[in-house]
């Protein structure tokens, strides 16, 4: 028997269309199952992308450390001592931790509470000032749009140069003229603008890059007149090492070289972004699993619906099936007929659900998400692979849904069907 025999398809089509309401209601179960699965998976992906977009532009294998107050007396020092990191610590750390890749010191200037602290001509704004090392660009991508970032020479010569954030630029240069080599006043001191950076990441140390003025950390040390103290350290681990490990080693060495008890937990603080990143990843894995569980549940409910209706259909068509058998329909013909019907109904409803789901996601993306600001969802899509998997699941479900009714149909004997009573 030919699978592509148009009779068979006509047969199936007639059965499905002859009972429009019934077929629609049945198909709706499967439609809804797939639709929800797609929507949920799209939303899950969107959520993940939204979150990842926030992390983008910030090294995920990085850690951040700062100093606190000692909580244990050690080597003659009383507890409750405030201490600072110094430039010499940078050398010690770089020398003694092979897993350490980039070590970048940070200083914060703040805006000293004086209102508009950043001024160019008639334009001014209130922004944070950050003292950075040239290698900070490998920790957080400044996304330089004009000019350049702070470089090694700036650091070595303690130059009065700055990289301004994109928002700072729009405030100071509303006419969008070239800011490079212009002098702006920051906290009363003039700096030459060498670059503009918009930043990418939602993660920031201090203010966002787009909303801050970055100057060489050495320059800031000099201006603050606090010696060579460092406020915060950022570091990344080499590919083979974990950021957590590096963070712990840095803390140990810092304590050893600054006369702090190795067991003192309050003298330093720090966290690794890697850990946060892994946690976020774990959460998304959980969400993905939940989506599949709930989605499959809905789908199974739909399949049971199809199976149930097919059962009724078989019952209703007892006589017809009996006549067909009397006229010489082999069991295989009956099997293929019922199975095909179930398969077609499931597949059509499922494909429709898949299509409507994808369209809905697309529309939501175009007309809502892309226009909304600060949305935690971004680009909610389902991958091609997911669509393929869903389709395969659908077809399998169709077969399962058809199996029980088919067995029921096979039990119909011609005599039972055509008997008059």
């Amino acid at each position, binding site marked *: *028997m030919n699978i592509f*025999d148009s*009779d068979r398809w006509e047969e199936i089509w007639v059965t499905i269309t002859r009972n429009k309401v019934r077929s629609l209601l049945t198909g709706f179960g499967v439609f809804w199952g797939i639709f929800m699965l797609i929507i949920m998976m799209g939303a899950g992906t969107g959520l993940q992308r939204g979150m990842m977009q926030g992390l983008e532009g910030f090294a995920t294998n990085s850690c951040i450390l700062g100093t606190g107050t000692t909580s244990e007396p050690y080597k003659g020092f009383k507890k409750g001592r405030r201490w600072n990191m110094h430039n010499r610590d940078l050398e010690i750390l770089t020398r003694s931790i092979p897993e350490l890749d980039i070590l970048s010191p940070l200083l914060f200037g703040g805006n000293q509470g004086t209102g508009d602290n950043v001024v160019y001509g008639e334009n001014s704004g209130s922004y944070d000032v950050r003292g950075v090392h040239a290698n900070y660009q490998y920790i957080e991508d400044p996304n330089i749009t004009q000019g350049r970032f702070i470089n090694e020479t700036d650091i070595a010569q303690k130059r009065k140069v700055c990289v301004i954030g994109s928002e700072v630029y729009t405030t100071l240069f509303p006419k969008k003229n070239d800011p490079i080599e212009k002098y702006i006043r920051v906290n009363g001191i003039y700096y030459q603008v060498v670059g503009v950076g918009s930043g990418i990441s939602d993660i920031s140390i201090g203010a966002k890059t787009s909303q801050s003025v970055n100057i060489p950390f050495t320059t800031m040390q000099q201006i603050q007149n606090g010696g060579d103290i460092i406020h915060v350290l950022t570091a990344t681990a080499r590919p083979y090492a974990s950021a957590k490990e590096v963070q712990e080693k840095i803390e140990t060495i810092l304590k050893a070289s600054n006369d702090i008890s190795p067991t003192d937990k309050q003298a330093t603080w720090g966290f690794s972004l890697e850990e946060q990143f892994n946690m976020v990843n774990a959460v998304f894995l959980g969400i993905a699993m939940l989506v599949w569980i709930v989605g499959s549940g809905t789908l199974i409910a739909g399949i049971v619906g199809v199976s149930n209706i097919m059962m009724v259909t078989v019952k209703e068509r007892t006589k017809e099936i009996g006549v067909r058998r*009397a*006229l010489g329909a082999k069991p295989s013909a009956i099997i293929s007929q019922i199975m095909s019907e179930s398969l077609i109904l499931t597949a059509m409803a499922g494909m429709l659900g898949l299509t409507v789901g994808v369209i809905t996601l697309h529309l939501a993306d175009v007309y809502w998400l892309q226009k909304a600001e600060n949305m935690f969802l971004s680009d909610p899509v389902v991958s091609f692979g997911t669509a393929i998997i869903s389709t395969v699941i659908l077809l399998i479900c169709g077969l399962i849904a058809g199996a029980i009714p088919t067995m029921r149909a096979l039990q119909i004997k*011609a005599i039972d069907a055509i008997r008059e009573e």
Partner: protein
Amino acid sequence: MIKLEHINKTYYSGAPLHVLKGIDLNIEKGEMVSIMGASGSGKSTLLNILGILDIYDTGNYYLNNVLIKDLSEKKAATFRNTMIGFIFQSFNLIGFKNAMENVALPLYYQGVGRRKRNLIAMEYLDQMGLKDWSRHLPNELSGGQKQRVAIARALIAKPQVILADEPTGALDSKTSEEVIQILRDVNKEGMTTLIVTHEHSVAQATDKIIHLKDGVIENIATVGE
């Protein structure tokens, strides 16, 4: 053509019911035979066994010298398709198929292509005088027309034997006569025909009447003697 040797059949739903008690029967090729009997006499069971719709417990059933026994469903379906033409009391046409498609159905199960089988179906419908009704659905046809479509369907596979179960049961007397006349005509062309009926007028139109009573053949009467 049909040879039954001591056929026994018992139904085991609840109390065992011995329906056929050793039926011996011989029907020659080209004969037209009717089976009569009160309800419960076993005539429907006999027809079902003859039509390979039901199985018998003991004995032998030869159809055209082929032993019909312990067949697989698939084999049984093939025999039903090629050797037997069924005619039912309530026509049993498929409601959503038109007359031509209904007639062509047995050929569909033989794997004959759509165009060819519809062409053959049209010939048979023409013989029944229903050429103009080929595109009509069964519910647009009268009882007599429906039964003629059913007869065309029974004939299309060129079976060895026609089995008719109360073919006139749902028809008025005038249409009944027409249908019987058609069956007679078909028989005249050499088709072995077996009719289960309780109407004497129908039975009288056949060559032989087999009277069944309580699962045994009471007598076989030759009509016209």
